[in-house]
Protein backbone atom coordinates (compact mmCIF):
# COMPACT_ATOMS: atom_id res chain seq x y z
CA UNK A 1 0.00 0.00 0.00
CA UNK A 2 1.19 3.49 -0.71
CA UNK A 3 1.37 6.10 2.05
CA UNK A 4 -1.74 7.81 0.78
CA UNK A 5 -3.80 4.70 0.74
CA UNK A 6 -2.66 3.84 4.28
CA UNK A 7 -3.94 7.19 5.47
CA UNK A 8 -7.18 6.69 3.59
CA UNK A 9 -7.64 3.21 4.99
CA UNK A 10 -6.95 4.49 8.49
CA UNK A 11 -9.56 7.16 8.02
CA UNK A 12 -12.13 4.63 6.87
CA UNK A 13 -11.44 2.58 9.96
CA UNK A 14 -11.72 5.69 12.13
CA UNK A 15 -15.00 6.71 10.54
CA UNK A 16 -16.57 3.32 11.01
CA UNK A 17 -15.31 3.20 14.60
CA UNK A 18 -16.91 6.60 15.21
CA UNK A 19 -20.23 5.46 13.75
CA UNK A 20 -20.23 2.26 15.81
CA UNK A 21 -19.29 4.13 18.98
CA UNK A 22 -22.10 6.63 18.50
CA UNK A 23 -24.51 3.77 18.00
CA UNK A 24 -23.49 2.25 21.32
CA UNK A 25 -23.48 5.64 23.06
CA UNK A 26 -26.98 6.41 21.80
CA UNK A 27 -28.30 3.03 22.91
CA UNK A 28 -26.65 3.53 26.28
CA UNK A 29 -28.28 6.92 26.77
CA UNK A 30 -31.61 5.48 25.71
CA UNK A 31 -31.49 2.52 28.06
CA UNK A 32 -29.52 3.64 31.10
CA UNK A 33 -32.40 4.93 33.22
CA UNK A 34 -34.44 1.84 32.55
CA UNK A 35 -31.51 -0.41 33.35
CA UNK A 36 -30.79 1.37 36.64
CA UNK A 37 -34.47 1.17 37.59
CA UNK A 38 -34.58 -2.52 36.62
CA UNK A 39 -31.55 -3.29 38.72
CA UNK A 40 -33.00 -1.60 41.77
CA UNK A 41 -36.37 -3.27 41.22
CA UNK A 42 -34.70 -6.62 40.67
CA UNK A 43 -32.77 -6.23 43.91
CA UNK A 44 -35.82 -5.29 45.95
CA UNK A 45 -37.81 -7.97 44.19
CA UNK A 46 -35.24 -10.62 45.02
CA UNK A 47 -35.17 -9.51 48.68
CA UNK A 48 -38.89 -9.12 49.19
CA UNK A 49 -39.84 -12.84 49.17
CA UNK A 50 -37.49 -13.35 52.10
CA UNK A 51 -39.65 -10.94 54.13
CA UNK A 52 -43.03 -12.60 53.98
CA UNK A 53 -45.52 -11.82 56.68
CA UNK A 54 -44.03 -8.65 58.15
CA UNK A 55 -44.73 -4.98 57.58
CA UNK A 56 -41.76 -2.71 57.05
CA UNK A 57 -40.66 0.75 55.93
CA UNK A 58 -39.65 1.14 52.31
CA UNK A 59 -36.04 1.73 51.26
CA UNK A 60 -34.70 -1.61 52.42
CA UNK A 61 -31.90 -1.51 49.87
CA UNK A 62 -30.51 1.71 51.40
CA UNK A 63 -29.84 0.18 54.81
CA UNK A 64 -27.11 -2.00 53.44
CA UNK A 65 -24.25 -3.21 55.59
CA UNK A 66 -21.37 -4.89 53.80
CA UNK A 67 -19.10 -7.10 55.87
CA UNK A 68 -15.71 -8.05 54.49
CA UNK A 69 -14.42 -11.52 55.36
CA UNK A 70 -13.65 -12.81 57.88
CA UNK A 71 -17.06 -11.86 59.19
CA UNK A 72 -18.25 -14.97 60.99
CA UNK A 73 -21.10 -15.50 58.53
CA UNK A 74 -21.13 -18.36 55.97
CA UNK A 75 -18.90 -17.88 52.95
CA UNK A 76 -15.61 -16.13 52.41
CA UNK A 77 -16.82 -13.41 50.09
CA UNK A 78 -18.39 -10.17 51.38
CA UNK A 79 -21.65 -10.77 53.25
CA UNK A 80 -24.44 -8.23 52.94
CA UNK A 81 -26.97 -7.37 55.61
CA UNK A 82 -30.04 -5.21 54.94
CA UNK A 83 -31.64 -3.84 58.07
CA UNK A 84 -35.39 -3.72 57.89
CA UNK A 85 -37.30 -1.30 60.08
CA UNK A 86 -40.98 -0.80 60.83
CA UNK A 87 -41.77 2.75 61.89
CA UNK A 88 -38.13 3.21 62.82
CA UNK A 89 -37.95 0.15 65.05
CA UNK A 90 -35.83 -2.89 64.05
CA UNK A 91 -38.17 -5.37 62.38
CA UNK A 92 -35.96 -7.86 60.61
CA UNK A 93 -32.57 -8.37 59.00
CA UNK A 94 -31.88 -9.75 55.55
CA UNK A 95 -28.66 -11.68 55.15
CA UNK A 96 -27.09 -12.31 51.77
CA UNK A 97 -24.54 -15.04 52.38
CA UNK A 98 -22.80 -17.79 50.47
CA UNK A 99 -22.89 -21.52 51.09
CA UNK A 100 -19.48 -22.71 49.95
CA UNK A 101 -20.07 -26.44 49.92
CA UNK A 102 -22.73 -26.89 47.25
CA UNK A 103 -22.47 -29.66 44.68
CA UNK A 104 -21.30 -27.32 41.91
CA UNK A 105 -19.82 -24.27 43.51
CA UNK A 106 -21.05 -21.49 45.78
CA UNK A 107 -24.77 -20.95 46.41
CA UNK A 108 -25.81 -17.36 47.15
CA UNK A 109 -28.70 -17.22 49.59
CA UNK A 110 -30.87 -14.46 50.98
CA UNK A 111 -32.29 -15.18 54.40
CA UNK A 112 -34.71 -12.96 56.30
CA UNK A 113 -34.75 -13.10 60.09
CA UNK A 114 -37.32 -11.32 62.19
CA UNK A 115 -36.02 -9.30 65.15
CA UNK A 116 -37.38 -12.05 67.40
CA UNK A 117 -35.12 -14.54 65.63
CA UNK A 118 -37.53 -16.48 63.46
CA UNK A 119 -37.04 -16.94 59.74
CA UNK A 120 -39.23 -14.82 57.45
CA UNK A 121 -38.10 -16.52 54.28
CA UNK A 122 -35.22 -18.09 52.40
CA UNK A 123 -34.50 -17.68 48.70
CA UNK A 124 -31.69 -18.80 46.45
CA UNK A 125 -30.17 -15.90 44.51
CA UNK A 126 -27.50 -17.73 42.54
CA UNK A 127 -26.42 -21.31 42.15
CA UNK A 128 -25.02 -23.78 39.65
CA UNK A 129 -26.55 -26.98 40.99
CA UNK A 130 -27.78 -29.63 38.60
CA UNK A 131 -31.16 -28.96 36.99
CA UNK A 132 -33.66 -31.53 38.20
CA UNK A 133 -31.59 -32.49 41.25
CA UNK A 134 -29.94 -29.74 43.26
CA UNK A 135 -31.93 -26.92 41.70
CA UNK A 136 -35.05 -27.96 43.64
CA UNK A 137 -33.77 -25.61 46.34
CA UNK A 138 -35.06 -22.77 44.14
CA UNK A 139 -38.55 -21.65 45.10
CA UNK A 140 -39.68 -21.73 41.47
CA UNK A 141 -38.77 -25.42 41.23
CA UNK A 142 -40.14 -26.86 44.45
CA UNK A 143 -41.51 -25.96 47.87
CA UNK A 144 -38.37 -27.07 49.63
CA UNK A 145 -37.20 -23.63 50.83
CA UNK A 146 -40.55 -22.83 52.41
CA UNK A 147 -40.04 -25.32 55.23
CA UNK A 148 -37.76 -22.86 57.02
CA UNK A 149 -40.39 -20.14 57.34
CA UNK A 150 -41.15 -19.41 60.97
CA UNK A 151 -38.39 -21.64 62.32
CA UNK A 152 -35.61 -20.24 64.49
CA UNK A 153 -32.55 -21.22 66.48
CA UNK A 154 -34.23 -23.14 69.26
CA UNK A 155 -36.95 -24.44 66.95
CA UNK A 156 -35.28 -26.85 66.38
CA UNK A 157 -32.18 -26.80 68.55
CA UNK A 158 -28.77 -26.49 66.88
CA UNK A 159 -28.43 -30.19 66.13
CA UNK A 160 -31.88 -30.34 64.59
CA UNK A 161 -30.77 -27.99 61.81
CA UNK A 162 -29.94 -30.85 59.44
CA UNK A 163 -31.61 -33.15 56.94
CA UNK A 164 -33.88 -35.83 58.35
CA UNK A 165 -31.44 -38.45 57.06
CA UNK A 166 -28.70 -36.80 59.07
CA UNK A 167 -30.76 -36.80 62.26
CA UNK A 168 -32.28 -33.37 61.79
CA UNK A 169 -35.76 -32.04 61.11
CA UNK A 170 -35.70 -30.90 57.49
CA UNK A 171 -36.88 -32.64 54.35
CA UNK A 172 -34.48 -34.16 51.86
CA UNK A 173 -34.42 -33.75 48.11
CA UNK A 174 -34.54 -37.03 46.22
CA UNK A 175 -31.15 -37.97 44.80
CA UNK A 176 -29.45 -34.87 46.09
CA UNK A 177 -28.32 -34.34 49.62
CA UNK A 178 -25.16 -32.33 49.12
CA UNK A 179 -27.00 -29.22 47.96
CA UNK A 180 -29.64 -29.05 50.73
CA UNK A 181 -27.03 -29.91 53.34
CA UNK A 182 -25.01 -26.86 52.27
CA UNK A 183 -28.07 -24.59 52.35
CA UNK A 184 -29.21 -25.76 55.78
CA UNK A 185 -25.74 -25.28 57.20
CA UNK A 186 -25.59 -21.72 55.89
CA UNK A 187 -29.01 -20.94 57.38
CA UNK A 188 -28.04 -22.44 60.70
CA UNK A 189 -24.78 -20.49 60.91
CA UNK A 190 -26.52 -17.26 59.96
CA UNK A 191 -29.12 -17.74 62.70
CA UNK A 192 -26.38 -18.37 65.24
CA UNK A 193 -24.64 -15.19 64.09
CA UNK A 194 -27.87 -13.20 64.32
CA UNK A 195 -28.56 -14.34 67.86
CA UNK A 196 -25.06 -13.32 68.93
CA UNK A 197 -24.93 -9.96 67.14
CA UNK A 198 -28.50 -8.72 66.97
CA UNK A 199 -28.02 -5.34 68.61
CA UNK A 200 -24.78 -4.54 66.81
CA UNK A 201 -26.42 -5.28 63.47
CA UNK A 202 -29.22 -2.79 63.92
CA UNK A 203 -26.99 -0.07 65.36
CA UNK A 204 -24.19 -0.13 62.78
CA UNK A 205 -24.09 2.70 60.22
CA UNK A 206 -24.97 1.79 56.66
CA UNK A 207 -22.12 1.06 54.27
CA UNK A 208 -21.80 3.73 51.60
CA UNK A 209 -22.71 2.48 48.15
CA UNK A 210 -19.61 2.26 45.99
CA UNK A 211 -20.21 3.77 42.59
Amino acid at each position, binding site marked *: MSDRSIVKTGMTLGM*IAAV*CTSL*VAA*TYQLTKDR*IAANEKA*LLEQSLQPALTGIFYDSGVSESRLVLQPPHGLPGNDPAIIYRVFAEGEPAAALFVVTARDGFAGPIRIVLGVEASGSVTGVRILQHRE*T*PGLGDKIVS*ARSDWVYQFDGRSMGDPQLLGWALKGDGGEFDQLTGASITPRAVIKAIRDTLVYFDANRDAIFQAAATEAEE
Partner: protein
Amino acid sequence: MTSGGFLQQLQTGLWKDNPGLVQLLGLCPLLAVTTTLVNGFGLGIATLLVLAMSNALVSATRRWIKPEIRIPIYVLIIASLVTCIELIFKAWFPMLDRSLGIFIPLIVTNCAIVARAEVFASRNTIGVSIADGIGMGAGFAMLLMAIGAFREFVGQASILSRLDLITGGEPFNGFSFADSGLLLAILPPGAFFSLALAVVLKNYMDQRRRNSRGAFASRGLRRPHQ
Protein backbone atom coordinates in the same frame (compact mmCIF):
# COMPACT_ATOMS: atom_id res chain seq x y z
CA MET B 1 -23.16 -18.08 -3.73
CA THR B 2 -25.51 -16.17 -5.96
CA SER B 3 -28.01 -13.68 -4.73
CA GLY B 4 -31.37 -15.06 -5.67
CA GLY B 5 -34.50 -13.26 -4.57
CA PHE B 6 -35.33 -12.15 -1.07
CA LEU B 7 -37.48 -15.21 -0.39
CA GLN B 8 -34.93 -17.58 -1.81
CA GLN B 9 -32.32 -16.13 0.56
CA LEU B 10 -34.62 -16.55 3.53
CA GLN B 11 -35.17 -20.14 2.63
CA THR B 12 -31.47 -20.83 2.21
CA GLY B 13 -30.79 -19.75 5.79
CA LEU B 14 -33.84 -21.39 7.27
CA TRP B 15 -33.25 -24.78 5.78
CA LYS B 16 -30.80 -25.43 2.98
CA ASP B 17 -27.69 -23.87 4.54
CA ASN B 18 -28.96 -23.64 8.12
CA PRO B 19 -26.00 -22.29 10.10
CA GLY B 20 -26.43 -24.77 12.93
CA LEU B 21 -27.55 -27.86 11.04
CA VAL B 22 -25.45 -27.65 7.89
CA GLN B 23 -22.59 -25.24 8.47
CA LEU B 24 -22.33 -26.32 12.14
CA LEU B 25 -21.41 -22.78 13.15
CA GLY B 26 -22.06 -21.14 16.49
CA LEU B 27 -22.26 -24.42 18.36
CA CYS B 28 -20.98 -23.07 21.68
CA PRO B 29 -24.11 -21.04 22.49
CA LEU B 30 -26.25 -23.63 20.78
CA LEU B 31 -25.08 -26.31 23.16
CA ALA B 32 -24.91 -24.10 26.24
CA VAL B 33 -28.22 -22.28 26.45
CA THR B 34 -30.66 -24.75 24.97
CA THR B 35 -31.88 -26.17 28.26
CA THR B 36 -35.34 -24.69 27.74
CA LEU B 37 -37.43 -23.42 24.86
CA VAL B 38 -37.54 -19.95 26.38
CA ASN B 39 -33.75 -19.69 26.66
CA GLY B 40 -33.35 -20.91 23.11
CA PHE B 41 -35.85 -18.33 21.92
CA GLY B 42 -34.07 -15.51 23.77
CA LEU B 43 -30.64 -16.22 22.39
CA GLY B 44 -32.09 -17.01 18.97
CA ILE B 45 -33.83 -13.65 18.70
CA ALA B 46 -30.74 -11.80 19.92
CA THR B 47 -28.58 -13.58 17.35
CA LEU B 48 -31.11 -12.95 14.60
CA LEU B 49 -31.16 -9.21 15.31
CA VAL B 50 -27.38 -8.96 15.40
CA LEU B 51 -27.04 -10.99 12.22
CA ALA B 52 -29.60 -8.96 10.26
CA MET B 53 -28.13 -5.63 11.37
CA SER B 54 -24.51 -6.62 10.92
CA ASN B 55 -25.27 -7.87 7.42
CA ALA B 56 -27.03 -4.58 6.68
CA LEU B 57 -24.12 -2.46 7.97
CA VAL B 58 -21.44 -4.55 6.29
CA SER B 59 -23.32 -4.46 3.03
CA ALA B 60 -23.92 -0.70 3.31
CA THR B 61 -20.23 0.02 3.87
CA ARG B 62 -18.83 -2.62 1.56
CA ARG B 63 -17.69 -0.08 -1.06
CA TRP B 64 -15.29 1.57 1.40
CA ILE B 65 -14.03 -1.51 3.14
CA LYS B 66 -10.61 -2.51 1.81
CA PRO B 67 -9.82 -6.21 2.04
CA GLU B 68 -6.89 -5.49 4.39
CA ILE B 69 -9.06 -3.97 7.09
CA ARG B 70 -12.26 -5.93 6.63
CA ILE B 71 -11.85 -8.22 9.63
CA PRO B 72 -11.30 -5.44 12.20
CA ILE B 73 -14.27 -3.63 10.73
CA TYR B 74 -16.51 -6.68 10.97
CA VAL B 75 -15.43 -7.14 14.57
CA LEU B 76 -16.13 -3.49 15.33
CA ILE B 77 -19.57 -3.59 13.77
CA ILE B 78 -20.56 -6.89 15.36
CA ALA B 79 -19.22 -5.98 18.81
CA SER B 80 -21.08 -2.64 18.79
CA LEU B 81 -24.33 -4.28 17.71
CA VAL B 82 -24.03 -6.98 20.37
CA THR B 83 -23.42 -4.32 23.02
CA CYS B 84 -26.55 -2.47 21.87
CA ILE B 85 -28.62 -5.66 21.94
CA GLU B 86 -27.30 -6.46 25.39
CA LEU B 87 -28.31 -3.02 26.68
CA ILE B 88 -31.74 -3.37 25.09
CA PHE B 89 -32.23 -6.78 26.71
CA LYS B 90 -31.13 -5.40 30.07
CA ALA B 91 -33.60 -2.55 29.71
CA TRP B 92 -36.65 -4.41 28.42
CA PHE B 93 -36.10 -8.10 29.21
CA PRO B 94 -34.00 -7.97 32.38
CA MET B 95 -34.99 -11.44 33.55
CA LEU B 96 -34.20 -13.06 30.22
CA ASP B 97 -30.89 -11.24 30.23
CA ARG B 98 -30.10 -12.71 33.62
CA SER B 99 -31.07 -16.16 32.49
CA LEU B 100 -28.85 -16.04 29.39
CA GLY B 101 -26.05 -14.30 31.27
CA ILE B 102 -22.70 -14.31 29.55
CA PHE B 103 -24.08 -15.81 26.34
CA ILE B 104 -25.50 -12.49 25.14
CA PRO B 105 -22.09 -10.75 25.09
CA LEU B 106 -20.63 -13.95 23.69
CA ILE B 107 -22.73 -13.56 20.52
CA VAL B 108 -19.70 -11.56 19.36
CA THR B 109 -17.81 -14.80 19.07
CA ASN B 110 -20.53 -16.59 17.12
CA CYS B 111 -18.64 -17.35 13.95
CA ALA B 112 -21.87 -17.66 11.99
CA ILE B 113 -22.08 -13.86 12.10
CA VAL B 114 -18.57 -13.09 10.80
CA ALA B 115 -19.05 -15.85 8.27
CA ARG B 116 -22.18 -14.20 6.82
CA ALA B 117 -20.45 -10.81 6.75
CA GLU B 118 -17.47 -12.24 4.90
CA VAL B 119 -19.20 -14.69 2.60
CA PHE B 120 -22.39 -12.84 1.82
CA ALA B 121 -22.95 -9.28 2.99
CA SER B 122 -19.61 -7.98 1.71
CA ARG B 123 -20.60 -9.02 -1.82
CA ASN B 124 -24.32 -8.31 -2.02
CA THR B 125 -26.77 -5.45 -1.92
CA ILE B 126 -28.38 -4.38 1.33
CA GLY B 127 -31.80 -5.92 0.63
CA VAL B 128 -30.59 -9.46 0.00
CA SER B 129 -28.01 -9.14 2.78
CA ILE B 130 -30.73 -8.35 5.28
CA ALA B 131 -32.76 -11.25 3.92
CA ASP B 132 -29.75 -13.47 4.33
CA GLY B 133 -29.25 -12.23 7.90
CA ILE B 134 -32.88 -12.81 8.78
CA GLY B 135 -32.93 -16.22 7.12
CA MET B 136 -29.73 -17.40 8.75
CA GLY B 137 -30.72 -15.85 12.08
CA ALA B 138 -34.17 -17.40 11.96
CA GLY B 139 -32.66 -20.74 10.95
CA PHE B 140 -30.36 -20.56 13.95
CA ALA B 141 -33.15 -19.38 16.26
CA MET B 142 -35.49 -22.16 15.15
CA LEU B 143 -32.80 -24.73 15.78
CA LEU B 144 -32.12 -23.28 19.25
CA MET B 145 -35.83 -23.37 20.03
CA ALA B 146 -36.30 -26.88 18.67
CA ILE B 147 -33.37 -28.23 20.66
CA GLY B 148 -34.42 -26.23 23.72
CA ALA B 149 -37.96 -27.57 23.53
CA PHE B 150 -36.75 -31.11 23.00
CA ARG B 151 -34.28 -31.02 25.89
CA GLU B 152 -36.80 -29.37 28.18
CA PHE B 153 -39.48 -31.89 27.25
CA VAL B 154 -37.28 -34.93 27.72
CA GLY B 155 -35.20 -33.63 30.60
CA GLN B 156 -37.71 -31.72 32.66
CA ALA B 157 -40.97 -33.18 31.36
CA SER B 158 -42.33 -29.69 30.85
CA ILE B 159 -42.78 -27.19 28.08
CA LEU B 160 -42.56 -23.39 28.09
CA SER B 161 -41.13 -23.28 31.58
CA ARG B 162 -40.03 -19.80 32.67
CA LEU B 163 -42.16 -18.15 30.00
CA ASP B 164 -42.30 -15.28 32.47
CA LEU B 165 -38.73 -14.37 31.48
CA ILE B 166 -40.22 -13.01 28.26
CA THR B 167 -43.70 -11.96 29.29
CA GLY B 168 -42.90 -10.73 32.79
CA GLY B 169 -45.12 -11.44 35.77
CA GLU B 170 -45.14 -14.31 38.20
CA PRO B 171 -42.64 -17.16 37.78
CA PHE B 172 -44.25 -19.70 35.52
CA ASN B 173 -43.06 -23.27 35.59
CA GLY B 174 -44.51 -24.32 32.27
CA PHE B 175 -46.85 -27.14 31.51
CA SER B 176 -45.59 -30.16 33.35
CA PHE B 177 -46.22 -33.76 32.34
CA ALA B 178 -44.36 -35.57 35.07
CA ASP B 179 -42.35 -34.94 38.20
CA SER B 180 -39.01 -35.31 36.55
CA GLY B 181 -37.60 -36.29 33.21
CA LEU B 182 -34.51 -37.93 31.87
CA LEU B 183 -31.82 -35.80 33.48
CA LEU B 184 -29.27 -36.59 30.78
CA ALA B 185 -31.12 -34.41 28.29
CA ILE B 186 -30.48 -31.24 30.30
CA LEU B 187 -26.86 -32.03 31.07
CA PRO B 188 -24.23 -31.05 28.49
CA PRO B 189 -24.12 -34.46 26.75
CA GLY B 190 -27.84 -34.08 26.09
CA ALA B 191 -27.06 -31.04 23.97
CA PHE B 192 -24.74 -33.06 21.74
CA PHE B 193 -27.23 -35.90 21.40
CA SER B 194 -30.05 -33.50 20.55
CA LEU B 195 -28.00 -31.68 17.95
CA ALA B 196 -26.96 -34.98 16.39
CA LEU B 197 -30.61 -36.05 16.23
CA ALA B 198 -31.55 -32.77 14.57
CA VAL B 199 -28.82 -33.15 11.94
CA VAL B 200 -29.91 -36.72 11.26
CA LEU B 201 -33.52 -35.63 10.92
CA LYS B 202 -32.64 -32.88 8.45
CA ASN B 203 -30.48 -35.14 6.31
CA TYR B 204 -33.16 -37.78 6.32
CA MET B 205 -35.82 -35.31 5.21
CA ASP B 206 -33.53 -33.90 2.51
CA GLN B 207 -32.80 -37.36 1.21
CA ARG B 208 -36.45 -38.30 1.06
CA ARG B 209 -37.17 -35.13 -0.80
CA ARG B 210 -34.34 -35.79 -3.26
CA ASN B 211 -35.64 -39.25 -3.90
CA SER B 212 -39.16 -38.06 -4.47
CA ARG B 213 -38.01 -35.19 -6.64
CA GLY B 214 -37.14 -37.72 -9.34
CA ALA B 215 -40.83 -38.56 -9.48
CA PHE B 216 -42.12 -34.98 -9.26
CA ALA B 217 -39.46 -33.12 -11.19
CA SER B 218 -42.05 -30.78 -12.60
CA ARG B 219 -42.56 -29.09 -9.22
CA GLY B 220 -39.05 -27.69 -9.40
CA LEU B 221 -39.68 -25.59 -6.31
CA ARG B 222 -36.69 -26.73 -4.31
CA ARG B 223 -34.28 -27.17 -7.23
CA PRO B 224 -30.79 -25.90 -6.39
CA HIS B 225 -30.22 -22.72 -8.32
CA GLN B 226 -26.50 -22.92 -9.12
